[in-house]
């Protein structure tokens, strides 16, 4: 088996590194490196730079104006961007809604909405989970009733990431309460400025407020904002979820995180010299590094089987489980590395924040980051749900 890169892919990596060194401002990468919360304009700035280069829609087909990168190129792209501490690409429009519109949307919807995602004119958020519909997503209760050429929407969505920045939300809504629960669901695109929508932030244990509740009271949505057919939304939702899990392995984030752990440990005094010389700590780091090396190959093996522009199927559950385990383990190593200084809580979003602390180890963010990343094994289908999906499939006759 050939694990080294082809000349084309090597050239792509070189071009990408060059681009990142020129286009990514130092202040922005420092914010990412220190886990500070990014502003809406930070994301918009970075999306615009990538779009100019033609690298914003990595997974879109060329026919829709995407980069249509090969699996290997996507792997390189994600890794280099993470190592350079580039802002993540906000996925809701680009890698969640867009694949659904490209497969199930009308020609008019594709022509109208897809260019606005690339240009940044629309910021999308996701209206899937509800207080009573988490792992059991199909139990969702938000109602959409037809009234002439509108749907009237009532209900509540939750865990809506970066919903405070969004002007559009795609939602799963119940259009047929009499049908079996997966069969009465539709996929609607809703303008966040419509009367009757209220967004409330949810503060999390790391002090940040990246997720929101979104409330709908008699919100009128034009019927042309229905994607595909009424009551077929569950099919589209499942299709979207497989795309949500693209890059869920987060190899690049893990590589960057592990490098950061070693950098911190090199500056921590220990009775063996530095913390990197401490055999117990070094063994913890080495084990994660070994897992990550194998994970990178597992990831490449799985994604290279999927066609360009498509997402892997069932195996994406494996990538999600192992990838998030490794990422969480790295945040644990980081908090161990800074020792007692992990108590300093420098979450930027906290009132009276500690961001001005003299902080030689950059220790202030590691505890917040450890707590924040507990979300990785919960969102996008919890790791228990992933195990359920995978085990059911392999135990089937």
């Amino acid at each position, binding site marked *: 088996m050939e694990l080294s890169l082809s000349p084309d892919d090597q050239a792509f990596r070189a071009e990408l590194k060059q681009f990142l060194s020129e286009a990514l401002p130092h202040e922005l990468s420092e914010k990412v490196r220190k886990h500070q919360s990014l502003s809406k304009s930070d994301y918009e700035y970075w999306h615009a730079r990538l779009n100019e280069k033609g690298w914003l829609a990595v997974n879109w087909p060329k026919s829709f104006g995407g980069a249509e990168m090969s699996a290997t190129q996507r792997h390189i792209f994600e890794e280099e961007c993470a190592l350079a501490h580039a802002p993540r690409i906000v996925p809701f429009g680009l890698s969640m809604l867009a694949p659904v519109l490209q497969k199930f949307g009308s020609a008019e919807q594709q022509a109208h909405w897809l260019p606005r995602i690339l240009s940044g004119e629309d910021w999308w958020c996701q209206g899937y*989970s509800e207080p*009573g519909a*988490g*792992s*059991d997503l199909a*139990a969702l209760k938000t109602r959409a009733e037809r009234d002439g050429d509108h749907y009237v929407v009532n209900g509540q969505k*939750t*865990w809506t990431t970066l919903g405070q920045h969004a002007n559009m939300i795609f939602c799963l809504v119940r259009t047929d309460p009499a049908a079996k629960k997966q069969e009465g669901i539709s996929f609607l695109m809703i303008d966040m400025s419509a009367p009757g929508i209220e967004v409330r932030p*949810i*503060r*999390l*244990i790391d*002090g940040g407020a990246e*997720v929101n509740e979104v409330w709908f009271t008699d919100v009128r949505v034009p019927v042309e904002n229905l994607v595909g057919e009424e009551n077929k939304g569950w099919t589209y939702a499942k299709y979207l979820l497989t795309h949500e899990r693209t890059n869920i392995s987060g190899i690049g984030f893990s590589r960057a995180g592990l490098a950061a752990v070693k950098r911190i440990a090199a500056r*921590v*005094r*220990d*009775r063996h010299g530095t913390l990197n010389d*401490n055999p*117990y*700590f070094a063994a*913890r780091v080495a084990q994660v590094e070994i897992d990550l090396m194998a994970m990178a190959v597992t990831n490449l093996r799985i994604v290279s089987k999927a066609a360009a522009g498509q997402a892997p199927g069932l195996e994406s559950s494996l990538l999600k489980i192992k990838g998030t385990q490794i990422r969480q383990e790295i945040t*644990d190593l980081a*908090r*161990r590395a800074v*020792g*007692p*200084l*992990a*108590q*300093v*809580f*420098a979450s930027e979003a*906290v009132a*009276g924040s*500690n961001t001005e*602390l*003299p902080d*030689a180890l950059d220790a202030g963010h590691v*505890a*917040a980051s*450890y*707590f924040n990343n*507990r*979300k990785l*094994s*919960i*969102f996008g289908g*919890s*790791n*228990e749900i992933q*195990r*359920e999906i995978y085990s059911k499939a392999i135990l089937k006759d």
Partner: protein
Amino acid sequence: MFDLSEEQTMLQDMLARFWSGPAETQTWDALADLGVIGACFPESHGGFGGTGRDIAVVFEEHGRACAAEPLIDMGLLPGILLRAAEQDLKPLIAGKTRYALAHGEAASRYDLDWVETRFDGTLSGEKTVVVGAMTADKILVTARHSGVAGDAAGIGLYQVDAGAAGLTSTPYRTADGAQAADLSFTSVSATPVLTEAYPALQTAWAAGALAQSADCLGAMAQAAHMTREYLTTRQQFGRPIGSFQALAHRLADMMLAVEQARSAVLMAAAAFDTAERDLNIAACKNLIGRMGRQVAEDAIQMHGGIGMTEEYALGDLAKRITMADHRFGDTDHHLTAFLDLSGATS
């Protein structure tokens, strides 16, 4: 042998009532009035307890309630150091004088003897994560009058007024919700308390580790209790999520972890006044570090998103449990200590 004495049972009941009362009544003065600070010290020094078991009882309830008052840092630790100096503990026990301890430094990590702050008539140096520094009347400061960082000998203990000239502070919140500060000393006037403070520091550190472990146990037990409640009430797929075997087994493992933690705290408490103190403290703190991580992470995972919200009580418990592994030596520090003390590496 596992039963509490009558006095300890009364203390436990009283604390449980106190911590279930209104939050605005749970102040430092109220703790002092109840005798909770005194329960950390023997009668010979004006207290009402002071055994390992007394400390374990007090702090388990403290942790279960996720109590904000820094009873370890402003009660237990200063008291043990002042006791070693034969000073009167009454003002501390009565809550009249508040003390904080400035010992840890940026480079000291978990090494008790790594003190670079100097005393040569006045104090100069930097201290980190001084819990309670902003509300203390007096600050006890460790500083080196001779030798170099890493020497056990040559570390003295000094007392400084909170508002002393040359003392500056950078206050912040800790991840488990306490108020702390980094302190900078530039030629600060100080009163000597102990000339050779290392043996007393070892006792204080051992008591701190025991108290932190008991506090963590209380928080773990409460987190496990909340998880059990959640698994029986949260419905998904038409049934309580605790009816799914994947979660039920994990809950069983969580309860087992709490029981192991309880035994480790009992063991360390019983050995507290014996020659086996440090070995048992190392064993306890290592086990608490490992079990605590399991309980905090699984409690959040089984709660799902709600477990990550600031509004819900589990988050504060999880942070408290996690931060226990960043105080008085972490899992690896105590694994090393255990190996050294048990002779396994000799």
